[in-house]
């Protein structure tokens, strides 16, 4: 009980003078967080797009690919970082293998669903107009699948931003480092600042991608 009174009395949730003197630290953590997230999402796309197109063409590939990444997805991130360290060491590679692996499942599902939902009439019309398979894929099918793919990118981005906070166990926490500091020192300011920036970053990214979707697929706008 005494401890709680002490915390309430002395340590406010945000100590502004600490914050103003630690702006560079906070910004560096934020930057690391953004970099880890961007690499993870782009890396996920680079793997999931060709894999998704392949699984769309050859349905036999769906079960093995979705199954493999589905199992990968159930491994808790903390445990996955731990398992990878003996092989890839304490490095960005360890963090990215885990983060990209999680994103591949999310993106792969949405790529396949998006391509599946292209109406057959549209495909017939494209064939009738003389599109070759590759041109049809690039200029008809992928653009029509874009809303589903961007929806997947939004989910992947937001969930990656959350998982990066746990990468402090391998020394790469981004904003998670601030949360860890708040825990170790029982000091509320870095904890609150780290968590709040994390939520703000996730919401900003989500909103930004929603705007990208509006610009990229104007025809999908609800009337």
């Amino acid at each position: 009980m005494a401890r709680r009174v002490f915390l309430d009395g002395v340590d406010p949730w945000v100590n502004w003078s600490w914050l103003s003197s630690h702006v560079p630290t906070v910004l560096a953590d934020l930057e690391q967080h953004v970099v880890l997230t961007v690499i993870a999402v782009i890396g996920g796309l680079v793997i999931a797009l060709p894999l998704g197109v392949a699984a769309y063409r050859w349905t036999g590939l769906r079960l093995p690919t979705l199954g493999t990444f589905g199992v990968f997805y159930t491994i808790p991130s903390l445990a996955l970082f731990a398992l990878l360290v003996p092989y890839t060491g304490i490095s960005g590679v360890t963090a990215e293998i885990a983060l990209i692996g999680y994103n591949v499942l999310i993106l792969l599902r949405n790529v396949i669903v998006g391509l599946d939902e292209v109406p057959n009439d549209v495909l017939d019309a494209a064939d009738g107009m003389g599109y070759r398979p590759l041109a049809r894929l690039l200029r008809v099918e992928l653009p029509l699948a874009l809303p589903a793919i961007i929806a997947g990118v939004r989910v992947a981005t937001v969930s990656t931003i959350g998982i990066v906070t746990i990468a402090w166990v391998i020394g790469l926490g981004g904003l998670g480092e601030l949360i860890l500091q708040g825990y170790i020192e029982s000091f509320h300011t870095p904890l609150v600042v780290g968590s709040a920036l994390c939520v703000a970053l996730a919401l900003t990214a989500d909103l930004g991608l929603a705007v990208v979707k509006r610009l990229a697929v104007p025809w999908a706008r609800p009337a």
Partner: protein
Amino acid sequence: MDFLHRVFIWLADPAHWHGSDGIPTRLGEHLHLSLEAVAIGALIALPIGITLGHYGRFGNLAISVSNLGRALPSYGILVTAFQILGLGDAPIILALTALAIPPMVTNSYVGLREVNPDLKDAARGMGYRELALVLRIELPLAVPLIMAGIRTSAVQVVATATLAAAIAGGGLGRYIIDGFARGRQGSYSRALTSSGSSGSSGRPASRATAFKTA
């Protein structure tokens, strides 16, 4: 293969199979934390999702709350709960429950919305009252989606319960955190395998269901 060999030696050591830091104890703690969080989460989330789904109102609210829930870093909630509630199971249960609620609200809402309106009209025509309509028509038809939501929540909770050890709690994450602290490799891979297998009880696909419905 040196790593796997050390894992085997660690597992074969009888000292790791009993006592307060034994594998059965840690597994029990992990299950207890996860079950309690999912059960409390279901008690809160299902009535909300079912009510909203039945009346078909505030659907956007339910979906945005769920998206917001995804944006919350579970580690941040855990440490914040620890600072407020102190040592013990309470902050862990609180954080895990917060994590469990959103998928269950969304899925039960969507599940009830997707019941064929013709069926509801037919039931009303046969004289069903609102409560009977919910209990005997809508709920049975919505069970697959509601269960998918519970599975999504359960897998996330079991995975995140490993983080309990980061705020001095128990569970299988204890081995991972302690393994990192000691720099010993045998310890944490054990937690990986047990936690992974209890997590996959809901089958891998369960996590993925959320992407479609959310």
